[in-house]
């Protein structure tokens, strides 16, 4: 039995004639308002707001009948409360010629439509590289901010979405290279780079610089290298940057060269081509960076590393 408290200055007051101060108790099953003092039924035929169906938790119901409509997305949408007419089911929804009555689905506002399209695109892109929900949410938020600002209005929404995805990955501390984002997007690296810089300026944020260690776990697992090799590669890359053996080289190239060196010193040897494919780096680039770190190879390995191939037998390119 539901108890409702009445506001004093609202709707037409239904009171018990004998006990005007008594707060009426609502019995929603029967649809009555009952005075608790004397039990008089004051109002009846109250509309039942409970659900019409019974739902059980163990039923694998793809649709939850107590929900009317999709889950609201209040943060991202404009609080869309419009009504849509769905396509009809059954014979009565079609008029004489076979066209459906009520053709127009009553489109929602066009601004939201563009944003919803972008969100769908972001989700699609993220699914391709298995990004977690928090990155997708962050990307959506960034996109919404950029979209509302309108400073990048002329740019393709897909480009902005890809750039937002890149920024979100960076901000979450798990950066993806531009090439990885390119692989799941139809936009070129150049355009994503341009949009990236524009968005940073528009939102007045900045991102941390990428380091070699950010990519080690991903590249090494994709290559199937054991944890020892991954840790060695991380150590090598960090040492190489500290000793300034590779000035001006992109951290991705240094990471790739470090992985090559570590894998060549272990039992799991990988070719430059394989590493280049995974990292998105050309094998000549790996060669160049490798040549820079090779002279100091002995200093770069971690002290507890078990060499399958000793340092002097490492390939020299």
């Amino acid at each position, binding site marked *: 039995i539901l108890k409702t408290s009445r506001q004093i200055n609202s709707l037409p007051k239904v009171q018990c004639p004998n006990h005007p101060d008594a707060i009426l108790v609502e019995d929603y099953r029967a649809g009555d308002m009952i005075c608790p003092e004397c039990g008089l039924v004051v109002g009846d035929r109250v509309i039942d707001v409970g659900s019409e169906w019974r739902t059980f938790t163990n039923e694998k119901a793809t649709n939850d009948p107590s929900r009317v409509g999709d889950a609201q997305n209040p943060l991202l949408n404009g609080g869309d409360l419009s009504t849509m007419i769905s396509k009809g089911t059954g014979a009565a929804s079609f008029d004489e010629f076979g066209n459906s009555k009520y053709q127009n689905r009553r489109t929602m506002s066009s601004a939201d439509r563009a944003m919803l399209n972008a969100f769908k695109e972001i989700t699609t892109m993220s699914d391709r590289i298995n990004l977690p929900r928090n990155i997708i949410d962050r990307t959506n938020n960034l996109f919404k901010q950029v979209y509302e600002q309108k400073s990048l209005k002329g740019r393709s929404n897909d480009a902005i979405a890809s750039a937002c995805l890149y920024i979100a990955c960076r901000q979450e501390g798990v950066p993806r*290279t*531009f090439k990885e984002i390119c692989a799941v997007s139809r936009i070129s690296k150049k355009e994503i*780079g341009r949009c*990236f*810089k524009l968005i*940073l300026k528009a939102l007045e944020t*900045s991102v941390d*610089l*990428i380091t070699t260690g950010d990519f080690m776990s991903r590249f090494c697992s994709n290559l199937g290298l054991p944890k020892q090799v991954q840790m060695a590669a991380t150590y090598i890359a960090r040492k190489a940057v500290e*000793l*300034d053996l590779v*000035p*001006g*080289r*992109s*951290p*991705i190239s240094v990471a790739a060269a470090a992985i090559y060196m570590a894998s060549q010193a272990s039992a799991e040897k990988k070719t430059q081509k394989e590493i280049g494919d995974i990292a998105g780096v050309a094998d000549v680039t790996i060669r160049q960076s490798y040549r820079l770190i090779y002279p100091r190879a002995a200093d770069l390995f971690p002290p507890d590393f078990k060499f399958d191939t000793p340092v002097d037998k490492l390939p020299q390119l």
Partner: protein
Amino acid sequence: MEQNNSLTPFPPGLASPQGAMTPVLPIFSPMMPYGTGLTPQPVQNTNSLSLLEEQQRQQQQQQQQQAAASQQQSGMVGGSGQTPQLYHSQVSTTTALPGNTPLYTTPLTPMTPITPATPASESSGIVPQLQNIVSTVNLGCKLDLKTIALRARNAEYNPKRFAAVIMRIREPRTTALIFSSGKMVCTGAKSEEQSRLAARKYARVVQKLGFPAKFLDFKIQNMVGSCDVKFPIRLEGLVLTHQQFSSYEPELFPGLIYRMIKPRIVLLIFVSGKVVLTGAKVRGEIYEAFENIYPILKGFRKTT
């Protein structure tokens, strides 16, 4: 003519050592080597196409500059300290100051956050060299690009690719884009005077082909300079401290892109210590920007 660098006055935007706010003048002593063909005086906006006169004028000015410089060199004692008196004497004896105005007085620039904060220090001995000047001029009459392309030497015209005639001359080594509206863009010159001379030569070529070409609104649109600070730079440190001006994305470009607000110049700073400055309308902006960035770069010198 090599000169002693200690004679250089301090960069604009700094208080003088005495602590008084003296109006600062640009750094460039006329004895500094700029490159050939520099005209110290403001260029007159003449519409007549007299190339010979132009060249003669240039030569005269060069002679004047050399005369004034040699006079000064003998007159001044090197290594004297930077007193305001020195400034005034420099101003009075010489007409040879770079830039477009003879008396290039910069008002004392306040230490706003938009200017990179610089400690009071001596100026660097390094002068950025100009590498490229882009200028535009209006020839004042409609042109038929096809006849120009057919009759002129060293001209290419591919209307499907680009709607202008691309013409090149060897001295000064420049390229011009000539549009059918009569407007022309001249690129590749190494100094303002060379750019103007080259534009006049192109206009002369067009005139000889029979068009009533004039020389209206010659304006330098962009100047690019480069220099070397001779030490390696820690770009990561620079991007951390000057976040609002810098953009360093090694995946996109190996250099750091520094957008200075005052003067509005974009600098490309590389790990090797080479710096490219672009976006200037006048020579002085390049020098000023470099003097602003030099102390900052010194602070991020690589120690190994």
